[in-house]
């Protein structure tokens, strides 16, 4: 009989032997586990590459009419040599538009514009909206009433109608379109921010800050804001898709990007009457729009699932 020595459990793992995963790394792991989010990211990555390398990928100048340069007809369909188009004809992947310009090159350059519109206008809306919402939620009282009352008024108008009204006043053009779409998206972000701030305001760590007399500004921007960003990021990603669609709609109506700028919405708008005689002029820009919006929506959905605290188990 031997007394077994009480050996220390040599292989006991300390509970915290690895650095705990933070919110963001967990979120990314969850994000990469979702197939739809990955597809969204691939689409967007491709789109961003196209936008950056548009001058390299394009075969023609997107604003240059090919009348008198090549022997081509306006609104000619696609001609791709390895798909059987005779090699003595000039190659145009997506065909030519009504002004005898290469549609493929125009769509590539259009990606730049759409991404720019989406990101800039949503960025603008998030900055202003988050600021207003944070102030509103943190201050409460009449400030809250005033800001949220204004936001409610803006929400009462259909966003596209309000954007059209703003562009009509400011005059058509790309910059004014950006501004108009930015302005009409503000209320959504302000409301989301306000509700997050209202919830976080009651948390113990904020109470603690208050009790030791941390200045309001530091509490709001130092402690509350960073913790309230999650829903804003999700909404912002989805919002880019909406902004791109709104910009395309404005351009379709002739209020957005001005000719000869290649913009998908205005490309569709200008050729809308050729939908039966030259369908490629509608299909290709329309498809580019669909793909972009799909990309942002898939990524946004994935982000929402990944960042949602309640779903974490």
């Amino acid at each position, binding site marked *: 009989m031997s007394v077994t020595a009480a050996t220390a459990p040599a292989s006991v793992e300390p509970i915290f032997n690895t650095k705990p995963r933070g919110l963001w790394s967990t979120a990314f792991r969850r994000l990469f586990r979702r197939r739809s989010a990955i597809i969204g990211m691939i689409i967007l990555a491709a789109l961003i590459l196209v936008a950056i390398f548009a001058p390299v990928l394009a075969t023609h100048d997107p604003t*240059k009419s090919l009348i008198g340069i090549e022997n081509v007809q306006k609104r000619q369909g696609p001609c791709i040599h390895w798909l059987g188009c005779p090699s003595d004809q000039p190659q145009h992947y997506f065909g030519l538009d009504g002004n005898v310009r290469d549609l493929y090159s125009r769509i590539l350059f259009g990606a730049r514009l759409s991404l720019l519109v989406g990101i800039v206008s949503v960025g603008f809306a998030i900055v202003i909206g988050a600021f207003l919402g944070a102030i509103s939620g943190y201050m409460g009282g009449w400030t809250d009433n005033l800001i949220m009352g204004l936001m409610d*008024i803006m929400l009462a108008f259909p966003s596209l109608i309000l954007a059209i009204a703003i562009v009509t006043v400011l005059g058509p053009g790309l910059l004014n379109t950006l501004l108009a779409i930015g302005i009409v998206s503000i209320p959504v972000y302000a409301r989301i921010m306000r509700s997050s701030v209202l919830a976080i305001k009651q948390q113990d760590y904020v109470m603690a800050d208050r009790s030791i007399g941390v200045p309001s500004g530091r509490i709001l921007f130092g402690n509350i804001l960073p913790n309230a960003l999650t829903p804003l990021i999700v909404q912002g990603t989805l919002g880019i898709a909406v902004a791109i669609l709104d910009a395309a709609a404005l351009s379709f109506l*002739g209020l957005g990007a001005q*000719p000869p700028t290649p913009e998908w919405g205005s490309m569709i708008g200008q050729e*809308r009457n*050729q939908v*039966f*005689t030259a369908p490629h002029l509608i299909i290709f820009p329309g498809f580019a729009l669909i793909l972009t919006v799909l990309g942002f929506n898939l990524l946004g959905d994935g982000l929402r699932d990944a960042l949602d605290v309640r779903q974490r188990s």
Partner: protein
Amino acid sequence: MRKSIFLLSMLLILGLVVGGCAAPAGPGAAPDQSAATEAAPAEAAPAGPFEPMSMAAENCDYGGLFKSIEAVDQMTVKFTLCQPDPAFPAKVAFSSFAINDADYLQATGGGGELIEKPNGTGPYKLVDWLRGDQIIFERNEEYWGEPAIPQTLVFRWSAESAQRLVELQAGTVDGIDNPGPDDFAVIEADPNLQLAKRSGTNIFYIGMNNTYPPFDNERVRQAFAMAIDRQRIVDNFYPAGSSVATQFMPPSIFGYTDGLTWYDYNPDEAKKILEEEGVLPGFKTTITYRDVVRGYLPNPGVVAQDIQAQLADIGVEAEIVVMESGAFLDAADRGEIAGFHMLGWGADYPDATNFLDFHFGKGASAQFGNGFPDIWDALNEGATKAKPEDRQPWYDKANELIKQHVPMIPVAHGGNGAAFKADVEGAYASDIGAEQFALMNPGGRDTFVWLQNGEPAGLYCADESDGEALRACEQVMQSLLAYEPGTGDVVASLATEWTANDELTEWVFKLREGVKFHNGATLDANDVVLSYVVQWDASHPLHVGRDGSFTYFPGLFGGFLNAPE
């Protein structure tokens, strides 16, 4: 608390919106009709003995063509002119000078109901105008002439050429106006459809206003005339049947100068001149147009972008500005467009005065800035000679002077047309856009549905200038004379015969007996006098109209009497 603030801010915003919308409407309202009316002995002629109306200008210094209009007897009207006018019958036949019932004119006050519910003598009478949707006409059973073939006529409109074609192919309409240029081949290949072409009795031009620098410099305007490749525009963006314009006048209309050529396309020379004049480098301008399809411009957006590209080739940066149709025409007429503007003109009646006097005569609008006195003189000489062979040299001179001064760059005479179902008998497209649907038989059906480009703004065509409105008026209203469908020759209508003195200054019209207006009134000479006087006399209490501009009257007859300063 929150609610009240919310309500308050709502009210504030609402107030701002309403205020902002209401403000611009003020100056655009019809001018006040407070001017003296003593010159108008216009009294209603109630049942009883005929009391002839008349109206005379004190003298001809007011600048217009009319000296007097009088009812000689119940069925005779006499016009006395300040100058001879060989084109007078052609002008009188125009649908802006349709005859209204005098009592109806007075009952409506010269506006209001008159615009919504026209009361004419034509083969159709208006049943209902559903704003934004359609206009329904019905056969006038008491029509003095050949009764209309279709029992019901419906006017609809759509700005999109693709939609018009789809409706025609689907059979929901019997005829459409202005098919898209690319659709001509589709229609010709379809056995269920027929295409009726219009020859290009129109002109598409790029206008410049000589009150804005650098367009005040004639050499600069000439340089721009060399910088635009008109052949390229016509070849690429116009349907078959169009031609490159060498001058403002279309070839088939009297006043065209045979053999006149425009500046040759020469971008290098243009660039050189512009550099010499200090315009280049660094000239930025605008190209303004309205996004509506007209016979002279079937593809406005694409043509605008091509002109933009052509200007970019010589180093001119042009921004494209699209304006609403009405606002664009107003801005152009007031001379408010500083850059290039793309506009056109279709013939209303086949004579040089309709083109040249309207645009370059003394009474012309400020579209091209200040007029050119040497062109005025040539046009005045041409308009006052009696014989065509005496007139032609003056129009040759005017066309030559227009080439020299370049108030605009003539680009194209656009061929266009209308398309009908194959079973429509008698389908035709009028060169001047004045189709008479009463003459068409839609395959035995009792309703003819016509789909045009746009909705008429009003149906009192004295105060309309858009062809979309004029065509609708022409189904209901009639003038003293009319244009023969197809040829455009002047023929009898409400007047059965017309005579002039040797100097062509006194014109006497004999009215047709027994013509009834749709409201039952009988046509007499006073109806004719009052219909003209309310247009002619700007101080007349019935000179109201839709917006009060009455564009055609001063354009064709020199000017208003008692015009406000």
